[in-house]
């Protein structure tokens, strides 16, 4: 069995200060990833491994009449065929908020089909090839009923009001009616998919009542809780291992139906089972971003000052599951307005329940308001950048609290400067290069600072190296690296001398890596644990009679570059290893957490296995958010309507950056995903069968290298100690927010055509 425990090779470039917090240290997990040595979760090689393959429904609504498994069962190598009738009983599990299950049992294989692609059977065989071949022989008959295929289906209706989403102040309708300038438009965003390059999958192994799961996971403790509840074993009996994650983007935080099937079949067979979803199954086994519809009406003065915003939103959800994509999350805070009203409905359609995709809520919300304000700018003849400054919110208009930090003005200023915004010719269709129409667009984005409590263990080992342990994860955000930097700086060793161990639920507990909260939570926890390890080290050095510092009568010591000495520089100068040897210790270990002091074991369990204990971003006196401004140039072919993004300058305020090199990469990644959303990506539903027809990476168009121009990102953040222990705000979700509206606004500037329906494809322009 392989457990992730490699000492990462030296990956440092540049000078020694790169190893401190805020330095541009190269990824410490980089050498493993570029040499192929990094073993991702379901790449573990286990003896006796059997292979499972899922079979999915080919109708969108109805019931499974019969599943004929005879041919599959007699296929060579087949060990087990599972149907709703033959799978072992699995118990209902609580949801991610910790709400108790609504059903006593859970059926990961469906008898009643509510969406095309729903799992209804599975085959386990000796080899992957045998399982695939046998699965193709399973015959299913259905009693089909009419399906609601998407939001535009006439059967879809107006949906269910979500009262908790209502936000109102002032009298928005009356102020709108009285406003001298009124604009009103409808904005649609499409169904999108996370499409991480690593598919979902897992290896499950039972040893008695102990379950080990190797599965890419954004949340080991949350998923371990689900497995424990499904199979009625204590939480401690479940170990989740996820050393590297090949991209998640919100999709890998929950144990899913196929996860239950793999774990159940492993138990039924008494053998470890590996199950990896095919790429098409990755489009229906968990939800992407829900399709949304918004109407934004703005009432304003001739000076462009907003007097009222009325916002109505709808998102699709599943027939048997609830997903609310909070569509007013940016609408209600981006601009100062004395009157505001927002309401939201959800509409049930026959789809897998939608889920989190990068900046759920903020992303579509920004598409509405950031296009609408551009329309207002055009209407009143004010520059789109200027109108944003005129309506700048000096405090949170909704919470009526001061911003913790809001470097949005600075973002507008430095982005505009680098982009050359002042050279923009205001009239649409007034800039061109041959047959290409050129358009310049701007839009802002924001994401709240989600906070939570965390814990970590820091050890100082006999050789003077430092070890950090946490069950948090690194899916490319750079957790390994920034925690190494945090521990190195806090203890006083080189980053090379820190080993960070993540991705194993046996380590110190951690909450979800989602909502851009992990870096802030974990740097805080590691800082605390490392500080206490350092205190122990210095305490030993001063007080232990065997220590070379004992005679010095010092009350503190300096630890730097792995060596201890007195602050005055007199007395001995010894390495950490020598000190530990002299006092006869082989290690120092410290646990640190940021939980409230009187927390019980129950509080801790709840904190790490549910999201119920997240701290509101408006807690106390401040409203905490990251901010950004995107300046984007598009080139639209006048004859063909093809849109290419040719230049991007984005200025972003994520507070203090723990590692700018890695933060810049994440920002660029978010911007690129936003370009995909604006121009390429769309889950296309076959209206006859309610099926996603482009459920693969050739037809669902994620951006390729050839679609992406140079992207310049500028950090305008300042440390925000209201947001986190070390001053950072969120990084990962922020940068996608505002990209699609900036592109739509640029396309309008290029062509004079307002496309309010994503993606902006050529048929909408010609």
């Amino acid at each position, binding site marked *: 069995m392989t457990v992730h425990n490699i000492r990462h090779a030296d990956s440092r*470039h540049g000078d020694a200060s790169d190893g401190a917090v805020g330095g541009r240290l190269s990824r410490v997990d980089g050498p493993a*990833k570029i*040499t*192929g040595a990094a073993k991702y979760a379901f790449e573990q090689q286990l003896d006796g491994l059997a292979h499972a393959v899922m079979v999915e429904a080919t109708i969108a609504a109805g019931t499974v009449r019969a599943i004929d498994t005879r041919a599959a069962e007699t296929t060579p190598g087949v060990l087990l065929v599972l149907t709703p009738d033959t799978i072992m009983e699995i118990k209902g599990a609580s949801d991610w908020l910790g709400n108790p299950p609504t059903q006593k049992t859970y059926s990961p294989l469906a008898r009643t089909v509510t969406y095309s692609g729903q799992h209804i059977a599975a085959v386990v065989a000796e080899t992957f090839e045998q399982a695939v071949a046998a699965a193709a022989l399973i015959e299913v008959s259905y009693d089909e009923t009419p399906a609601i295929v998407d939001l535009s289906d006439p059967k879809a209706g107006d949906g269910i009001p979500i009262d908790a989403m209502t936000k109102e102040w002032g009298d928005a309708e009356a102020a709108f009616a009285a406003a001298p300038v009124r604009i009103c438009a409808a904005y649609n965003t499409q169904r999108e998919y996370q499409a991480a*390059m690593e598919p979902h999958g897992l290896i499950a192994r039972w040893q008695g009542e102990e379950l080990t799961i190797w599965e890419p996971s954004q949340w080991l403790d949350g998923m371990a809780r689900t497995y424990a509840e499904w199979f009625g074993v204590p939480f401690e009996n479940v170990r989740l291992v996820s050393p590297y994650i090949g991209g998640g983007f919100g999709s890998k935080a929950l144990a899913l139906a196929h996860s239950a099937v793999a774990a159940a079949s492993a138990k039924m067979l008494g053998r470890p089972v590996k199950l990896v979803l095919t*790429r098409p199954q990755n489009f229906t086994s968990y939800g992407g971003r829900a399709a949304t519809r918004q109407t934004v009406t703005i009432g304003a003065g001739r000076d462009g000052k907003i007097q009222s915003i009325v916002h109505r939103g709808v998102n699709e959800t599943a027939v048997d599951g609830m997903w609310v994509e909070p569509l007013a999350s940016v609408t209600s805070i981006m601009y100062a307005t004395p009157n505001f009203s927002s309401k939201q409905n959800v509409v049930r359609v026959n789809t897998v329940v939608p889920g989190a995709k990068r900046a759920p809520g903020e992303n579509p919300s920004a598409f509405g308001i950031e296009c609408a304000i551009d329309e207002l700018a055009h209407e009143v003849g004010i520059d789109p950048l200027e109108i944003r400054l005129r309506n700048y919110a000096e405090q949170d208009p909704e919470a009526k609290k001061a911003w913790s930090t809001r470097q949005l003005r600075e973002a507008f200023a430095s982005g505009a400067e680098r982009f050359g915004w002042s050279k923009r010719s205001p009239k649409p269709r007034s800039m061109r290069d041959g047959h290409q129409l050129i358009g310049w667009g701007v839009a802002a984005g924001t994401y709240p600072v989600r906070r939570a409590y965390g814990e970590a263990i820091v050890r100082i080992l006999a050789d003077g190296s430092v070890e950090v342990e946490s069950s948090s994860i690194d899916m490319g955000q750079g957790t390994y690296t920034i925690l190494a930097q945090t521990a190195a700086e806090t203890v006083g060793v080189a980053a090379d001398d820190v080993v960070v161990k993540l991705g194993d639920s046996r380590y110190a507990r951690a909450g979800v890596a989602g909502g851009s909260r992990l870096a802030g939570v974990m740097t805080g926890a590691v800082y605390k644990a490392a500080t206490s390890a350092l205190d122990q080290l210095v305490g030993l050095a001063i007080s232990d009679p065997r220590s070379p510092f004992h005679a010095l009568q010092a009350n503190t010591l300096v630890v730097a570059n792995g060596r201890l000495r007195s602050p005055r520089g007199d007395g001995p100068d010894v390495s950490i290893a020598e000190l530990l040897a002299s006092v006869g210790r082989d290690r120092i270990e410290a646990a640190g957490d940021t939980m409230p002091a009187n927390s019980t074991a129950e509080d801790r369990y709840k904190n790490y296995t549910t999201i119920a204990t997240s701290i509101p971003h408006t807690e106390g006196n401040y409203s905490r958010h990251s901010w950004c401004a995107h300046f984007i140039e598009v080139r639209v072919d006048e004859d063909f309507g093809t849109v290419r993004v040719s230049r991007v300058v984005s200025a972003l305020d994520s507070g203090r950056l723990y590692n700018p090199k890695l933060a810049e990469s*994440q920002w660029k990644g978010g911007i690129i995903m936003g370009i995909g959303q604006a121009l390429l990506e769309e889950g296309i539903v076959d209206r006859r069968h309610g099926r996603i027809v482009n459920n693969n990476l*050739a037809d669902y168009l994620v951006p390729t*290298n050839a679609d992406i121009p140079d992207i310049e990102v500028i950090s305008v953040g300042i440390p925000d100690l209201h947001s986190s222990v070390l001053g950072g705000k969120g990084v990962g979700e922020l940068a996608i927010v505002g990209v699609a509206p900036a592109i739509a606004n640029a396309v309008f500037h290029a062509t004079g055509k307002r496309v309010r329906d994503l993606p902006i494809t050529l048929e909408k322009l010609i």
Partner: protein
Amino acid sequence: MTSQTTIHLTINGRDHSLNVEPRVTLLDALRDRLDLTGTKKGCDHGQCGACTVHVDGERVLACLTLAAQVEGREITTIEGLAGADGTLDAVQAAFLEQDAFQCGYCTPGQIMSAVACIREGHANSDDEIREYMAGNLCRCGAYPNIVAAVRQAALEVVS
């Protein structure tokens, strides 16, 4: 289909013989039978480039290649790119320096493609690199840094 056949593969300069069904792809042979999991499976349909390896020095999608097809050919995977002493290939070093990856899942395929792209003489400009690297998807969006890394490595390889 149950009949197994013995095939002989030369991977990263080492000979392997394995008993597999003829329908086993090179990708599954590498990942499931030979513990060479550096080569990734993103789609299994030739759509993403994560499984890119070299066969006789040319880039090939291992998911669209049967293991039996490449008997007697020189196969190089990401595990065989660095020197025997661990010295990184110029492309690997440039990927690390330019931060040309995040999750790392597309990365072995990107690197194998980039090595071939440079060897093919298709790394003469940023636009050319973007075009000839367009078959390797990266959902983390490391593209600008990948272009920078390929540009840097191409200069080092030439000089």
